[in-house]
């Protein structure tokens, strides 16, 4: 089998794996959120369906699919239909550039069905040299789902939700971009694989703590999670941009939200916590076991951040809208510019004194 067909087969397999993990992950994250929130509020939460509530999200999914799909008469049909798709697609697409394990050296080994392998297997769907930018670009598309959905419903609350979401995402994208610039300053590369490799050789970028904090805060805003969920603020806007969605269309907004949480957590881990890297352990010496171990460690780190997302949501109250804008433009943005300058100075000094 030639190299192109092999790459195609592996790519299809990897895409299937990533989408499957994301969709299954979403059901688990929703369950985790409900159980954790119940725990924090001294309730029990959903604990009956299939072994301690494990099947709850699947049952809810079936319920959502079987419900009547109401399309209100006053909506703009085309945008109303497209909005959930536009919301969902970027949530799944961003998973493509996240490396979830070390490269498996299978070149030259023959495998069943595929024959002799020609290239090592990179555990990442698309190893493009601008992976970081890809993530920023695709993540910024997600806002269209919210805006289109909010506008299409033709009512004040949804429109206000959509406006809030778009203003918020535009203002928080700037500090997020600057936090990513510090990462690029440290790694010297935009490729996710090289960022992980560089962290393995030197240090985890979380040591640049201000950049990490700025990125974490902005990623909360980008995923529209509390304390930044003004787009769907119940007390003021009913349910914000998805007020008049029903059935699986509503379900897709939900899927997109939790899908974004998973990919964002994975991105935080990749950029600041060494990705699949296990500290003080040489994974490549362990062979296949090392690969499995690294993948599990990556999963564990990602789960910790998903937990932090949930934890923050049920601990903090929501910002007021003017506070939200002040925090971004007057607080985080100047801080992130300072961080970029500081990191640049330190990197130059390090390069001059240690080489």
């Amino acid at each position, binding site marked *: 089998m030639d190299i192109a067909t092999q790459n195609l087969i592996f790519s299809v397999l990897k895409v299937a794996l990533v989408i499957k993990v994301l969709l299954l992950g979403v059901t688990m994250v929703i369950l985790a959120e409900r159980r954790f929130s119940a725990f924090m509020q001294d309730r029990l939460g959903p604990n009956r369906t299939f072994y301690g509530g494990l099947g709850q999200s699947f049952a809810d999914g079936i319920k959502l699919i079987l419900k009547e799909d109401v399309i209100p008469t006053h909506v703009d049909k085309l*945008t109303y239909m497209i909005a959930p798709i536009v919301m969902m697609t970027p949530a799944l697409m961003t998973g493509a550039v996240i490396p979830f394990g070390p490269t498996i050296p299978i070149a030259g080994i023959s495998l069943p069905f595929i024959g002799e392998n020609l290239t090592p297997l990179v555990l990442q769907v698309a190893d493009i040299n*601008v992976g970081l930018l890809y993530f920023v670009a695709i993540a*910024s598309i997600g806002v269209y789902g919210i805006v289109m959905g909010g506008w299409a419903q033709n009512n004040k609350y949804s429109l206000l939700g959509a406006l809030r979401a778009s203003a918020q995402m535009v203002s928080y994208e700037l500090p997020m971009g600057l936090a990513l610039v510090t990462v690029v300053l440290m790694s010297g590369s935009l490729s996710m694989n090289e960022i992980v490799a560089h962290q393995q050789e030197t240090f985890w970028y979380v040591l640049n703590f201000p950049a990490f904090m700025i990125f974490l805060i902005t990623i909360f805003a980008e995923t529209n999670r509390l304390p930044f969920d003004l787009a769907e603020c119940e007390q003021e806007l009913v349910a914000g941009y998805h007020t008049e969605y029903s059935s699986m269309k509503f379900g897709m907004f939900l899927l997109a939200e939790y899908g974004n949480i998973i990919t964002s957590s994975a991105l935080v881990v990749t950029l600041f916590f060494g990705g699949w890297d296990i500290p003080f352990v040489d994974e490549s010496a362990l062979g296949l076991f090392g690969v499995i171990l690294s993948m599990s460690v990556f999963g564990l780190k990602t789960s910790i951040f998903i937990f932090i997302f949930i934890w923050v949501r049920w601990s903090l109250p929501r910002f007021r809208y003017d506070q939200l804008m002040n925090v971004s433009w007057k607080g985080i943005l100047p801080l992130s510019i300072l961080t970029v300058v500081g990191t640049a100075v330190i990197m130059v000094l390090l390069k001059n004194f240690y080489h």
Partner: protein
Amino acid sequence: MELVLFTIFAVLAIASALVVITQEKPIYSVLSLVVTLFSLAGIYVLLNAYFLAMIQIAVYAGAIMVLFLFVVMLLNLKDSYKIPNLKKLLGTVFGGAIALSVIFSFTKVGRALVPESEMPAGDAYNMGILLFTDYVFPFEIASILLLVATIGAIVFTKKQLKEN
């Protein structure tokens, strides 16, 4: 494979660009402009210009068009805006002139400046080297233009504040 992808992106770009100018609802125009920008990014990827493609999506589709959409939604124009005839005429003349000059420059340049095998990868490194060596002057001029625009916007808002 490349040809198929190119055809898809090219047709999509042209079709959505046509929708932008023929559509009466401003919000559809904005959304189809997003599709145009996206397909252009796809064509950039086919040309190996990954960096440019991602910047195209992040800056134009992701940030600028969101602001456009924001404005259109806030105004929420009910009736479609009728363009006066003089504007139509001027638009046709100047648009035609620009289109002609673009076509002319393409025929001058020919197919490609560099053979495909020698084409450098369009990543951030090569882009950066080009921007800070050969094209440093246009790059700085463009940044001054942006600065002027920013200052202009601030001046306008200040004026309005004083009048109020």
